[in-house]
């Protein structure tokens, strides 16, 4: 279970990114919405949904939405999730958002994230408005019936409550140390 409930405020953090910078949540205080996506390189669910997250950032960037991807997996056990591998993946896949490394796993633990991918969507006041999975079909984008994340983005940008504000995250477990 996530530590944050819908309606709770975001927990501040500062993490290094594959772009060589350090990003803090406060850097995005002027955004209409910020989506934290706990993800990683090696998990098939994360990879199956990856392009949809990249596309969402592209589609919503002009509306003031910022995606921040966070990898918290233990790279000593999963070398494919190490920082150098993250840099390579972000470049290869054209991530249009920072890919942050939570090496200590403190941020993932603070948020209570459990899976990759797992979405926490905050509105412009930093209030959690949606938490859960990306959509209802990891296997085939064409078969998606409920685009939970995008629907929640539309609702938040329109100042409405998302129709569905909580879903069960579907994916690999975060690999704890």
């Amino acid at each position, binding site marked *: 279970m996530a530590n944050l409930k819908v309606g709770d405020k975001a927990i501040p953090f500062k993490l290094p990114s594959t772009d060589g910078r350090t990003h803090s949540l406060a850097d995005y205080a002027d955004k209409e919405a910020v989506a934290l996506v706990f993800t990683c390189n090696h998990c098939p*669910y994360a990879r199956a949904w990856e392009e949809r997250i990249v596309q969402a950032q592209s589609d919503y960037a002009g509306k003031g939405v910022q995606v921040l991807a966070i990898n918290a997996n233990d790279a000593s056990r999963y070398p494919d999730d190490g920082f150098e591998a993250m840099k390579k993946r972000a470049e290869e896949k054209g991530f249009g958002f920072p890919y942050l490394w939570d090496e200590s796993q403190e941020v993932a633990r603070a948020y209570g994230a459990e899976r990759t991918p797992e979405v926490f969507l905050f509105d412009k006041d930093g209030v959690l408005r949606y938490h859960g999975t990306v959509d209802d079909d990891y296997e085939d984008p064409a078969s998606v019936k409920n685009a939970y994340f995008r629907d929640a983005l539309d609702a938040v940008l329109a100042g409405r409550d998302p129709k569905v504000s909580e879903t069960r995250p579907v994916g*690999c477990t975060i690999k704890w140390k």
Partner: protein
Amino acid sequence: MQVSFLYWEECPSHERALERLRAVMEEEGIEAEVELIEVKTEEQAKELRFVGSPTIRIDGVDIDPPSHEVYGLDCRIYYLEDGRVSPLPSEEMIRDALRAAKVPNE
């Protein structure tokens, strides 16, 4: 024909994969039992040469033989015919493996 389905409970795709396996077996007219093996520990994963969940073996042969074998409790990546990545083997992948296993007995 011996059909084994190995899974790790923490990977959410195994039920869907098992449904798919059984559906393809029915389409192919294969009445063999599916042996369900839940892998619960890293030691068991090594012992069973388990490269991730779900793993399907027909007469002991992996339906998608892994290029490198790292054993452990994890979710498995399948590369589909159209280039997509999936946590599930495709129907085609299962069907091809079942047909290949059937041939020697025909």
